[in-house]
């Protein structure tokens, strides 16, 4: 009981303190003596340490309610449809492949975080006016089941081109680019790799019986031999999936059961932004600052298996040991993605889905 009242006292005190110190937000923050709950909209892969927001609440008096919808694509679509009258205050999880859609629909209120100078400059350049703030990065790559290939004495495919060989017939499963953001990243990887020849690659892969499924979890936990009772030893996933296989395993193996084909990787940046129409702008800005703070960023690698975007955040050794950080990942300029995404998805659907 005593501890609780102490905490409440501390919280109120720090709210007042926060209200006084941050002058840009003074006018709004003063009204917030009664506790504010911010709603953070995100996707199902947002899984930080459960108590991570406790410190934030303690410092600011703001409670954070996390609301997860199924995947990044749906998240962004719903945000676009709700533009101006949002379901929450802050959105975490729009990535560089979907960013243009959200920006076109004027979903976010710009805010430049106080930690801006600590963030990866490649990422901040993608939203130069602070429409959104980068929060993490990762690479989408082909993952393979090491044991499966070893047992059969087959070399795993190291490039996208290699996948078209009949050796790898029936072996690859990918999430649908239309409904899944790693799926879209993989489609963009093939476009970055083959240029105008990307459609032909997919046609060959279709004949090579690539399996397209609805979501990443369906691909990884439904069909990948190393993670399910599925039948496909190649899966489109993240470069950080192998450390996840090690860290989540009990007992921990000395070596990851899966590996990544480094030449197939596409770099993904995730962003968070304040939703236009939020009634708690000042508090939402504090939350954005917290999301890119060292404390939150250092929690990311081992809970969500992504790289921090804040350069001052340190990355745990076990993560560094098993995660791959490709030196030259495939990329496409976001403005080109913005212009051609719909057209590419349309063409992809024509080849693979209809």
């Amino acid at each position, binding site marked *: 009981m005593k501890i609780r009242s102490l905490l409440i006292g501390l919280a109120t005190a720090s709210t007042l303190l926060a209200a006084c110190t941050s002058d840009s937000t003074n006018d709004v923050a003063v009204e917030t003596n009664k506790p504010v709950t911010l*709603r953070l*909209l995100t996707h*199902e892969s947002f899984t930080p340490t459960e108590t991570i927001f406790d410190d934030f609440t303690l410092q600011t008096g703001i409670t954070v309610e996390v*609301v997860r*919808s*199924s*995947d990044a*694509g*749906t998240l*962004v*679509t719903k945000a*676009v*449809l*709700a533009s*101006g*009258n949002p*379901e*929450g205050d802050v959105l975490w999880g729009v990535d560089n492949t979907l960013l243009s*859609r959200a920006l076109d629909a004027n979903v976010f209120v710009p805010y430049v975080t106080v930690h801006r100078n600590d963030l990866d400059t490649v990422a901040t350049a993608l939203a130069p006016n602070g429409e959104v703030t980068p929060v993490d990065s990762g690479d989408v790559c082909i993952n393979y089941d090491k044991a499966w290939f070893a047992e059969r004495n087959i070399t795993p495919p190291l490039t996208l081109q290699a996948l078209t060989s009949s050796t790898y017939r029936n072996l690859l499963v990918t999430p*649908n680019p*239309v*409904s899944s953001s790693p799926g879209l990243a993989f489609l963009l990887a093939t476009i970055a790799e083959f240029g105008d020849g990307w459609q032909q690659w997919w046609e060959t892969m279709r004949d090579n019986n690539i399996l*397209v*499924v*609805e*979501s990443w*979890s*369906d691909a990884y*936990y439904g069909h990948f031999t190393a993670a399910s009772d599925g039948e496909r030893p190649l899966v489109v996933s993240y470069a950080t999936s192998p450390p996840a296989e090690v860290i989540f395993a009990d007992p921990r193996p000395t070596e990851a059961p899966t590996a990544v084909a480094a030449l197939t990787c596409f770099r993904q940046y995730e962003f968070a932004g304040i939703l236009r129409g939020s009634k708690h702008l000042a508090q939402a800005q504090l939350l954005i600052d917290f999301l890119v703070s060292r404390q939150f960023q250092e929690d990311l690698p081992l809970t969500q298996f992504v790289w921090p975007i804040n350069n001052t955040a340190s990355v745990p050794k076990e993560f560094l040991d098993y995660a791959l950080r490709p030196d030259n990942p495939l990329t496409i300029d976001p403005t080109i993605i913005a212009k051609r*995404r*719909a057209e590419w*998805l*349309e063409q992809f*659907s*024509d080849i*693979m*889905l*209809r």
Partner: protein
Amino acid sequence: MSEPVWHPAPARVALVVVLLWLGVFLVAPVLTMVGGFVAPSDFSRILTVPSTWRLVWFSLWQSVISVAVTLVVAAPVTWLIGLHRFRGRRLLRATTTVGFLLPSVVVATAFLAVLPRSLHYTMFAVVIAHVYFNIAVVVRVVGARLELLDMQLMNAARTLGASPTVVWRTIVWPLIRGATAAAAAVIFLYCFSSFAVVRVLGGPRRSTLESDIALRAFGIGDIPAATVLALVQLVIVVGVIGVVRRLSGHEHGLSHLATLPPTAVAHRQRLFAFGVAGVTAAFVLLPIAALLWRSVQVGDTLSLAAWRTIFDTSLAASIRASIRTALFAGVLGVALAVLTTLAIVRLNTIGRLVDLLSIVVLAVSPVTLGLGLMLTFDIGWFDWRAKWWFVALAHTLVAFPLAVRVLVPAWRTTPIGLHQAAAVLGAGELRRFVDIDLRRMRPAIVASLGLIIAVSLGEFGAASLMSRADGETMPVMIARLLSRTGDLMRAQAFVLASLLVAVCIAALVLVESALGRSDRVARR
């Protein structure tokens, strides 16, 4: 027909209200989508690519196959229920109806649980789920016709030497032809705009127009293309409705006069009848049993853990949201359906047009409707996107045509003499409406309320677009839980699905018993 004893005024008022309602919540959204988002070039862009026509073709042929298989699968049980008197007949009929009322997401999920992995994402899975839904339509619509068959006539024909084939061709088939066409049309419509079943069971490589509309609107964010496809779908569906109306010529409804079927099951057919009843009941109940079974399986262990979480905020919130939405849609939908019915039965020519209109409303798919509403009511005072009842508005429109199908036949059973007598005795228009029509209609109104509630509870297409994070309806929540990883969440999805089944069965019991009362009222 004797001269009318009622003023046309109330019916006209009803007509105006209905037209206004449809104008604001149906026509305006569709026009907003077309006017606000579509350029002429979008039509040429969409209509000239072969993939669009592949979509149309797939939607068509999978529906035709689904209709054919449904008719074949439903034939034995329809024969049994339509022509025979036996103990448990009503129960069997109610059982076959369960499938029709279950939410498509739940049925698809149930089949995912029942079918072996090798059959996931196949045409077989899609068709079998469609059959599951639509058996009820055949049993209800064709079975009701069969009940009217005069056995004496058949017996006489047989005595005079007609072979069973001849009896079938000259007596039975002419009687049920119209009903069969009507049933086939209804099934066709449902399958043609199938969404959840195709998405869950067909896998990403199979797409109907409806699921592609959702895909483009959601995944690609290409609203113009989605709108053009929605229009294509609308045109095709209206065309099909037109053809069927011309062919069948008379209306069909979910309600009917239940004369008891004349014969008991013949001795030598006992075994066959038992088999038919058993297999049909098993087919309907097996997926439901699978849902229950999955709801107590967490990972590899049996556990009630998922059931214990139903009072957790998110699950309880979705249950609350569903109930709230269904009740709101039910009340509004019944009001709309009663007004529509009033206009249909009281205004001759216009009435027939309204009747047609109420069916055409079915042609606007829930996904289109949801999208249109979202894009229309998003400004100032009319920004309703955050209102909990917004989804219910869409459900009202999705469900009220079905309610009208129940109400119109029931209303028409009122003998005109009752009105004349009451009028002679000095009862005014309103008094007669309340004391005669509404009183006689009460069971039918209750039945249509149950129907709308059941439809609203299970609706997925519009709800998946319109539900908010804090007020997701149960089907949306189920789909979301299923797409997430983690054994407990899957089990929770099956718990919610089981609960939804239970609620829908309760609604069904309500409909059944109300229709039973309605039949008794009609016979008075």
